[in-house]
């Protein structure tokens, strides 16, 4: 069977690692943990007040929340545009909210977005904007989405 060079090398390194270091777990688990865990999680579920929503209702609520956020952002932009001070970079765009499809995007702080960029060792020059060389939130989000990074991290609806 034809294999790529990297795959052959991986298998070799894999074997050396396993031969020398094994693949056991060096961690302790409290005695009886797995025996009692199922009941514990069931008890946690019963304690939570929210009922299980049916999928259509959940999606309607999510859509409504997204529309509310969009409306709020639009209102903020209108109010801001009336100010005499120089325009500041837009924190969110309608496209951002639409692309994410999740209200959690509104909670995503600059530090969090930057941590994603750093974590993925992304090429920052690709998300710099024009003459100012500033990091654009919109550029970061679109870049991460295009590279399938943000979609992975934002996948909170199961």
């Amino acid at each position, binding site marked *: 069977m034809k294999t*790529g060079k990297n795959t052959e090398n*991986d298998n070799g390194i894999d074997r050396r690692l396993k031969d020398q270091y094994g693949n056991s*777990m060096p961690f302790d688990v409290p005695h009886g943990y797995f025996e009692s865990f199922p009941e514990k999680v069931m008890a946690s579920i019963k304690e939570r007040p929210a009922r299980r929503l049916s999928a259509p209702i959940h999606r309607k609520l999510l859509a409504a929340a997204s529309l509310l956020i969009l409306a709020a952002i639009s209102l903020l932009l209108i109010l801001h545009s009336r100010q005499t001070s120089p325009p500041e970079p837009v924190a969110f765009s309608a496209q951002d909210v639409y692309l994410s499809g999740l209200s959690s995007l509104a909670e995503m702080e600059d530090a969090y977005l930057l941590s994603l960029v750093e974590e993925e060792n992304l090429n920052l020059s690709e998300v710099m904007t024009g003459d100012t060389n500033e990091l654009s939130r919109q550029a970061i989000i679109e870049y991460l989405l295009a590279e399938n990074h943000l979609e992975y991290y934002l996948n909170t609806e199961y």
Partner: protein
Amino acid sequence: MIMQETSDVKILDLIRNEHSAEEGFLLLVKKYQQRLYWHIRRMLHDHDDTDDVLQETFIKAWKGIGNFREDSQLFTWLFRIATNETLSFMRKRKKSKQLLSNALNDKIPDHISQETSYSGDQISIRLHNAIQGLPHKQRLVFNMKYFDGMKYEEMAAILGTSVGALKASYHHAVKKIEQQLILG
């Protein structure tokens, strides 16, 4: 006596019936708890943190089981939830550590907590410390391939990343770990 595992089809049938939903869900938890536990524990190392994330995983599974479309395996779906919850936890912890570090004006070391309980030998611990040095996503890929023995196609379904990207990620991860172990 070996307990025969209940099939996913049977489990889903039980869960979708209002009268047997709890029974079905307990079977689901018993079937997959250990595999998910170790997946999370390899990332977080700490048992209490793992317990929190594992609980949250199954709570989300309970809430979302109505959306499960069976276009993927049940375990793949659960694994994806566990993975996302783990990464989310790690990000929150990183943020709060940074805030705390800023507040204390001191760098908090990013090594395994001294309170983590180990039972393994030093060799195994060295390997896990080396893995700890990888970026989160690369650590995930490495753990899933090296410890879980997953195929790239299975990992792609869970992580939503191409097979090619996963192979590259694993290749780099193995190289980095080997270098780290040599440097000791």
